């Protein structure tokens, strides 16, 4: 391994560090979550209160179907037409769980649907 190789490795780690910093800046702090924001293809699709049990069905008409459930467990992707089912397997985002502060998103990349736990502003 030569010196310039280390330079590239350093660049990679620096990028990781920068991204980590950006993520820490943008991630929610200890504020209580109160709502769920659903995005379709990067645009806000709707904002729903967390304390109201409901099922949101997003049918994009081209075979892309997502069913999002909000109940006492938090918010989950109940069903998705996508192939990898990563969003469904992720389980529920529980607003009372500390882990949710680290990752407050459910992403369904194939269908372009994302769910964010959003908070009491401030």
């Amino acid at each position, binding site marked *: *391994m*030569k*010196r*310039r*190789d*280390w*330079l*590239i*490795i350093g*660049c*990679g*780690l620096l*990028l*990781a*560090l920068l*991204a*980590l910093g*950006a*993520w820490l800046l*943008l*991630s929610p702090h200890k504020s209580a979550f109160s709502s769920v924001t659903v*995005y379709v*293809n*990067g645009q806000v699709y709707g904002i729903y209160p967390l304390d109201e049990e409901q099922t949101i069905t997003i049918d994009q008409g081209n075979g892309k179907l997502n069913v999002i459930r909000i109940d006492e467990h938090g918010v989950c992707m109940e069903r998705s037409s996508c*192939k*990898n089912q*990563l969003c469904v397997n992720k389980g529920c985002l529980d607003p009372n769980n500390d882990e949710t502060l*680290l*990752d407050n*998103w459910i*992403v369904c*990349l*194939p269908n*372009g*649907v*994302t769910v*964010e736990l959003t908070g009491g502003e401030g």
Partner: protein
Amino acid sequence: MNKPRIATRKLTELALLTAAALVLGYVEYLIPISGVPGVKLGLSNMVLLYAVALLDKRNACLLMILKVGLSGLLFGGFSAMIYSFAGGVLSLAVMLLLYSIKGMSLIGVSVGGALAHNIGQILVAACVVGFRSILFYVPILMIAAVIAGILTGVTAKLLVAILSKRKDGQETIEETKRDDKAEKDEK
């Protein structure tokens, strides 16, 4: 007379490398090494590293396009093809650039390529769902790229060292054969 022979040989080499890249890609697709989406070893990148080191730029590009197109048709589907195309173009460009820099071994080229590949995929994903929702994965993907890049880089370095020797050996053998034949023909 010699031209078509070399073309056939290049064609065979390219076909063989494409097949190798596809098989390695498929093996990877069968055994996901982690639960994190997008994190993989990048085994087929070894073939591209070989191409960067031992083929010319044109053939390396051709190999990348063939690999992305065929694996998209065979395993991934259209949207997966867009992701791997973005990753492929970016990583190949970076690898060719880094390879032309002196004092850089294949390990550095490999790590740079892996980083560029993941950055390409992140950019496409950011176009689809916005940057904020996937920001969480960016540090993970960068660190994974460094680790996987070192591993495939070391392997590719060994591979290229062995294969380039062999390749030269075969070439000299064939050249002597050809020269022999030419001498006979002259007689």
